[in-house]
């Protein structure tokens, strides 16, 4: 057991899984000598050599496309896409191939790979380094989408993702990479995919969030008797956990960073509108990014859900 931040936790998951399974390899831009632009793969090249930690050309489509072939043949590629905004180039490979090959071949071939990518506002970078596009992927049957929020679950979820027989998108909250340090067991443990965690129990109000926003949603919950659910896996998501909590509290606020319209929050709200409406005491609110292109540094604080906006939503549902 040692204190690790999320970067360290992911590094340790990669390292342990690579020791455990010779077929696990890491591919991506700058993952080798440079150790990744966020240093997530630091030290792995020295440990595992250039046949397993592989710097690729600047070619997101190529990375995902080749990873599909690698995985289908029997490797277990963990592909790093340097920023989520650049994953759009590989989207067709994911949507039209990775997640369909099992179905298209009726089980003969499959694509057990992991796509790791940092997402979200976090590092005051140039444009397109701050996307959080989970909703797009959550709409596509066949993929799994995972978003850790702490060093502990980052390590445990990544291990599950690597061992999973399906294609998993693993979205790493860049804003949290180094901001939380916490106890993480040294050895092997996993956090199962598809199950949410009750980040905090409460009676009056259910808050659903994930990744970066989970922490802000929690902070905003001070003074409320809020039950906070960390979804962790967005696809397939733990519908049961959400429904159980909402049935108890009668109130639901969803907090995410991506634009509100057709964001993943809509799915959570729609689920509840369908299956627990009779328990609801208040409108289901979403606090989310605005209907706007994710801005550069100067305006990003205005775009993201602020503590104040979140708190207002909690207050509003509590008035019912």
């Amino acid at each position, binding site marked *: 057991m040692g204190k690790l931040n999320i970067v360290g936790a992911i590094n340790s998951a990669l390292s342990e899984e690579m020791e455990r399974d010779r077929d696990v*390899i890491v591919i991506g831009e700058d993952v080798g000598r440079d150790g990744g632009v966020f240093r997530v793969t630091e030290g792995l090249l020295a440990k595992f050599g250039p046949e397993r930690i592989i710097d690729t050309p600047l070619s997101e489509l*190529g990375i995902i496309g080749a990873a*599909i072939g690698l995985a289908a043949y029997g*490797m277990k590629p963990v592909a790093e896409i340097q920023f989520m905004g650049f994953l759009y180039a590989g989207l067709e490979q994911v949507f039209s*191939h990775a997640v369909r090959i099992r179905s298209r*071949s*009726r089980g003969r071939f499959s694509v057990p790979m992991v796509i790791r990518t940092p997402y979200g506002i976090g590092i005051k970078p140039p444009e397109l380094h701050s996307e959080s596009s989970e909703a797009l992927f959550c709409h596509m049957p066949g993929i799994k989408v995972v978003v850790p929020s702490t060093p502990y679950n980052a390590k445990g979820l990544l291990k599950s993702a690597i061992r999973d027989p399906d294609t998993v998108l693993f979205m790493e909250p860049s804003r949290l990479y180094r901001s939380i340090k916490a106890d993480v067991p040294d050895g092997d443990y996993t956090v199962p995919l598809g199950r949410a965690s009750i980040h905090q129990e409460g009676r009056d109000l259910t808050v659903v969030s994930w990744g970066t926003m989970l922490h802000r949603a929690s902070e905003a919950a001070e003074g409320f008797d809020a039950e906070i659910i960390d979804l962790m896996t967005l696809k397939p998501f733990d519908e049961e956990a959400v429904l159980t909590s909402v049935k108890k509290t009668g109130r639901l606020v969803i907090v995410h960073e991506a634009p509100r319209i057709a964001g993943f929050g809509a799915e959570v709200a729609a689920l509840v509108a369908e299956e627990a409406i009779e328990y609801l005491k208040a409108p289901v609110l979403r606090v989310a990014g605005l209907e706007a292109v994710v801005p550069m540094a100067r305006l990003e604080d205005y775009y993201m859900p602020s503590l104040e906006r979140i708190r207002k939503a909690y207050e509003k549902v509590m008035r019912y």
Partner: protein
Amino acid sequence: MPVNIIEKIEVKYLQIINEKGEADPNLIPSVSDDEITRFFETIILARAFNQRALSLQREGRIGTYASILGQEASQVGSALAFSVEDWLFPSFRESGVLVAKGYPMWMLYRYWAGDERGMKCPENLNIFPMSVPVGTHVPHATGAAWAMKLKGHRKAAGVYFGDGGSSKGDFHEGLNFAGVFKAPVVFLCQNNQWAISVPRSLQTAAKTIAQKAYAHGFEGIQVDGNDAAAVYKATKDAVEKAKNGGGPTLIECFTYRLDDHTTADDASRYRAKEEVEAWRAKEPLVRLRLYLEKKGKWTKEYEEGVTKKAQESVDAEIKKAEAYPPPDPADLIRYTYAELTPRQKKEMKESGWGS
């Protein structure tokens, strides 16, 4: 110091047997008469498969189908150059490749009838489901080949796509990776001169598709795609090279799509009859027949026998395809993930399907 030439590239063209069945004396020793006989017989089989697919479509017994007529040499010649442990990545117009590899024809008919089970490749073969989005499967072959190399397996991958496919970024990124990682892969462009209604000349300003390989640092070659011997030899050499660590090769099979793009197409809208007829004269079977005849290996009876056998076998396969029970609707959901998700279980239940 001034204007220097820093790189020279030459694109080669290979033909072994010409339209008249005449063989190049220097090259023909690389292909045996037995092999040529095999091309001949396999092309007849592929053509029988194809002909029946077209009529099944007309009768409404299968859906839209993409004919291979005219391209059989490209497909059969290349397919036979791969070993059974190699991995192939076909596009939708590769029935000839699959037939040549012994892929069960009844499964192909089922596939074209809209049944995904037809693409469940038998365990003794390694053929990926046909790729429908053009060119997008090119990187998969690179990836699989790269995996072979990483695992130290002495195998190769082959991937088929059209002239249209060579315009896609996927093609280039796939080739570039293969060049960088020296992946044992053979890129087989079936340049049939048309991408639906778009002629090769409007597909790219490059003189050949073969030369696109040099953008990625490895050899590209154009072969007479109606000459099964040339296609076979070029592919065989490329597969050998790949297995010996020499990296990838791009082979442009210069051929022609004699039929409509698919059964949903009407090629007379966009191309001249004369062009089609000129190419028909170069079609792949005639030259093999002439060649074998000269060698005393062809008789009318022989060909009739081969044809009859092919037709019988196709008939039997169609029977098998049509007798096959319809797919279980639950299959639709079942193969999405390795295991059903809770939501899927719910959907199965609501739909009244067993899980």
